[in-house]
């Protein structure tokens, strides 16, 4: 098959190939055994794929998200170049500008964290006065991470498909740089998927909402969604006016305030409280998705107390806490995303939590979402149990009783009597035969006791008659099992099989027989 060259022939070529594939398929039905067709088909597929790759390369410039590149890369870079060229300090010299920058930093990042993140993406509370909506929407845009609809969709996708390299927009599996900055600069590959996801999560019009309500799943066929039309319009407005809002809150407002209230130049106002402040906010937000998902990070003690099946970590490091504005407890957040707190600890550094809490006390919002303590502890326990089960499966617990050979007393006596086993010691405990020869020298109670019990049933002596052995001793004993004594008294043995191996099954979570197990086993 000749490979098509040149960009102009591409569209034509693909069409031809499509037709050919169709014809080859029909041919396939006619003559099944023709290998030629198979080869043809394969090369068609290969060509198609190569065309796709070429197309993607050609479209590289189209796939850059220029709005975000401008806010995330170009603006900070320009301002730093300016500062370098005119040898200005990285922190403002004018004290008033400095104080204003600090206040403005908190003012905007709180709008983003509690508005974009907690309210729109996670529905952590309900708003009673519309003023707050505008505060969230206008000052949230000053971070320069996109409109509410776009950012919250991406964030929900991130929570929904965490660590999925295709669907998670900032999956850490694609590398630190991608999770931190790359995803902002490059448009995602699966555009249509995200568009559909966005329509589903934040519909652009009421009509589509109803459509979804009728078609998407059978459970809601008769119900009509009561999605707030006001909110849809609001999101539409914010989406359209995002860039205007961004310019207003990042350039205009800081610039004017600096000039009129801080007695500083306009350019300082744009750079310090405007762009550099924005850059700092961006870094602290992006760090939660990159640093707090990075397992190999050494500056913190990464831990996953709730779920270790995804990459989110709780970073116990005060520096990380400050850097991420109190959002570094990602493992907790990924398990309880609707909680308005970022961790259940009362004393954690979490300004967003304090802010939302005070809003609630002021009566501006209501219906705070708090995870009950019981649930948090339950999940912690389940996670610890999972870790324990994993550890347990790695240890040697001796041969399971059900897999041991049955040995009759007669055979057993013959085994003892045979000369090849002269130096070995066999002891029966609870109807199970143990070969304790390798352990003999280590027995803390001495060898004579073992020798005296050779070939005999020492159950009583083992369990307190002479010495009540510790759990560790019983574990050691289990590793020395070699067979089950078949003396007609198997009820007791099978009782133990159920007890021990039932446990094993539970831990392997193949609990077909255990359909009545409680949620504890999870």
């Amino acid at each position, binding site marked *: 098959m000749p490979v098509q060259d040149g960009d102009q022939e591409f569209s034509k070529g693909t069409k031809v190939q499509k037709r050919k594939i169709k014809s080859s398929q029909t041919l396939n039905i006619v003559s099944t055994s023709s290998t030629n067709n198979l080869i043809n088909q394969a090369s068609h597929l290969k060509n198609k794929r190569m065309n796709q790759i070429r197309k993607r390369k050609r479209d590289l410039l189209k796939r850059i998200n220029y709005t975000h590149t401008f806010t995330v890369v170009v603006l900070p870079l320009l301002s730093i170049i300016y500062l370098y060229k005119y040898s200005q300090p990285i922190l403002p010299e004018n004290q008033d500008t400095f104080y204003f920058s600090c206040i403005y930093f908190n003012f905007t990042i709180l709008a983003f964290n509690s508005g974009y993140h907690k309210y729109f993406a996670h529905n952590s509370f309900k708003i009673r006065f519309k003023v707050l909506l505008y505060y969230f929407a206008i000052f949230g845009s000053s971070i320069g991470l996109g409109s509410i609809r776009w950012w919250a969709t991406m964030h929900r996708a991130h929570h929904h498909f965490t660590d999925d390299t295709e669907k998670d927009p900032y999956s850490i599996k694609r590398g630190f740089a991608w999770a931190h900055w790359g995803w902002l600069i490059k448009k995602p590959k699966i555009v249509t998927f995200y568009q559909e996801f966005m329509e589903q999560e934040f519909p652009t019009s009421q009509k589509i909402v109803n459509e979804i309500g009728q078609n998407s799943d059978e*459970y809601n066929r008769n119900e009509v969604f009561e999605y707030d039309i006001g909110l849809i319009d609001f999101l539409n407005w914010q989406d359209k006016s995002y860039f205007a809002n961004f310019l207003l809150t990042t350039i205009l407002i800081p610039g004017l305030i600096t000039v009129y209230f801080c007695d500083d130049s306009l350019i300082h106002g744009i750079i310090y409280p405007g762009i550099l402040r924005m850059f700092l906010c961006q870094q602290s937000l992006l760090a939660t998705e990159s640093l707090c998902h990075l397992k190999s990070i050494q500056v913190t003690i990464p831990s996953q107390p709730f779920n270790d099946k995804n990459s989110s970590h709780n970073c116990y490091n005060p520096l990380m806490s400050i850097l991420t504005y109190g959002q570094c407890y990602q493992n907790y957040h990924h398990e309880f995303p609707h909680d308005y707190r970022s961790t259940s600890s009362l004393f954690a550094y979490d300004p967003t939590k304090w802010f939302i809490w005070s809003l609630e006390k002021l009566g501006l919002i209501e219906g705070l979402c708090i995870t009950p303590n019981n649930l948090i502890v339950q999940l912690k326990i389940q996670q610890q149990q999972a870790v324990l089960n994993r550890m347990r499966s790695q240890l040697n617990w001796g041969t399971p009783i059900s897999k041991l050979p049955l040995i009759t007393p007669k055979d057993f006596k013959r085994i003892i009597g045979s000369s090849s086993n002269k130096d070995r010691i066999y002891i*029966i405990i609870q109807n199970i035969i143990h070969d304790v020869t390798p352990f003999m020298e280590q027995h803390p109670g001495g060898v004579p006791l073992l020798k*005296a019990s050779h070939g005999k049933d020492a159950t009583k002596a083992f369990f307190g008659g002479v010495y009540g052995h510790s759990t560790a001793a019983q574990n*050691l004993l289990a590793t020395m099992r070699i067979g089950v004594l078949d003396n007609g008294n198997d009820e007791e043995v099978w009782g133990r099989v159920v007890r021990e191996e039932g446990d094993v099954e539970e831990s392997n979570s193949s609990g077909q027989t255990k359909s009545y197990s409680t949620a504890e086993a999870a």
Partner: protein
Amino acid sequence: MASVDSEQVDVVDITSLNALAAGTNKKTPRIVAAGLGGRLMGTADLVKVTAEQITQDSLESLAEKDERERKKYSKVKHISEQPWTLSNFHKHINWLNMILVVAIPLYGLYNAVYYPPQLKTLILAFVLYVFSGVSITAGYHRLFAHKAYDAHLVCKLFFAFFGAGAIEGSIKWWSHSHRIHHRYTDTPRDPYDARQGFWFSHMGWMLSKANPKNRARADISDLTSDQIVVFQHRHYLLIMVTAAFIFPVLVAGLGWGDYWGGFIYAGILKTSFIQQATFCVNSLAHWIGVQPFDDRRTPRDHVITAFVTFGEGYHNFHHEFPSDYRNALKWYQYDPTKIVIYILSKLGLAWNLHTFSQNAIEQGLLQQQQKKLDRLKKKLDWGTPVDELPVWTREEFNKRAKEEGLIIISGMIHNVKKFIKEHPGGQPLVKASIGKDATKAFNGAVYAHSNAAHNLLATMRVAVLSEGEINANTFELQNQMMEKEKQA
């Protein structure tokens, strides 16, 4: 009890085993300490017990035993059973031990106040302190009492000599009572029973007279066949005085003319320091710290105890794995005795170092953690167990569903009325499912709920549906369903 029937396997004779374990199977019953030695640290009549008595004891309950003992001693009450009064306190006290452990150290302290030490003497005292301390931990304890390794003759002689200088009894007596302590931990037979309080396990047990009804024995036939142990036991008083007092006095006196300082600092005070450190293993190690291996008995792990006692502070581990030559497992835990033994083994002076397998150690850790988790689990609300839920028919469910806000998930009926408002995915989804089977929707068709959501769901159970499959572990069910979908 050997059975004639060839179809049956013999059962061991516990009495004869106990005789073996206690060392009473010999024709001439061995006495641990006679004469002055018998009164030195314990009492000789504490070990006059037969295998039959021990067997009977371990097979019957404590109450039965108390009853038997009470009858036996109904006429004569032993001094230890009488209350302490002003008139009989002198009978309670073991005066010999009082002098050795309390009076002499006090005398030393008194003199130390008026006699400032020389630096050289202090260094000598410290060196002897380390020598005697290591002799007790590496020698008396891990080598002789636990047989954790085999040592060269030179080592044994060193341990026997400097160990005697600690004035804690002969190897034979010390190991015997230590083996009893391990065999009967936290029972009345334990000579330093930690359940009777800190001071009893620290010094009280040796300052007061013990009750002879708590007699116990342990097999020390391996020690009695050791020439060095026998020799040290026989000439204990002489060796003790030499090692504890004469040796330091001579070194300090002949070396730099400080006879009196050598006696006070390198003799008396050094000895009493070691004594207190060793007592700390019996008291402090059963008192403060954590129990990572087994919390049914009192031994505990703590770094402070380890610092005081040359590394014997990881006592919970030690009681679980007594014949391990190590006490601390991790590199950062303080156990100089372990290092000494390890170096000796590299020098060829010690060999056959016993260690328990990592597998067994981790098993112990795991089981204890599991126990803790299970205890925590019990405190939480996991929803009503399925077995205790009432069974409803479909009709009953249909009748009550709309009114009470009921949903079927995985064959169980859940009351979600109160929860509707709190549902993170919005109210409409839940409202739409009322009165229906939402198993699929809950388990991934609409949204794959988190483990926490499944836990929350479990607390809302009210009944079981009479027909249909039930899987109480809904999270497990969800994983299975999603797995199937992936394959399809």
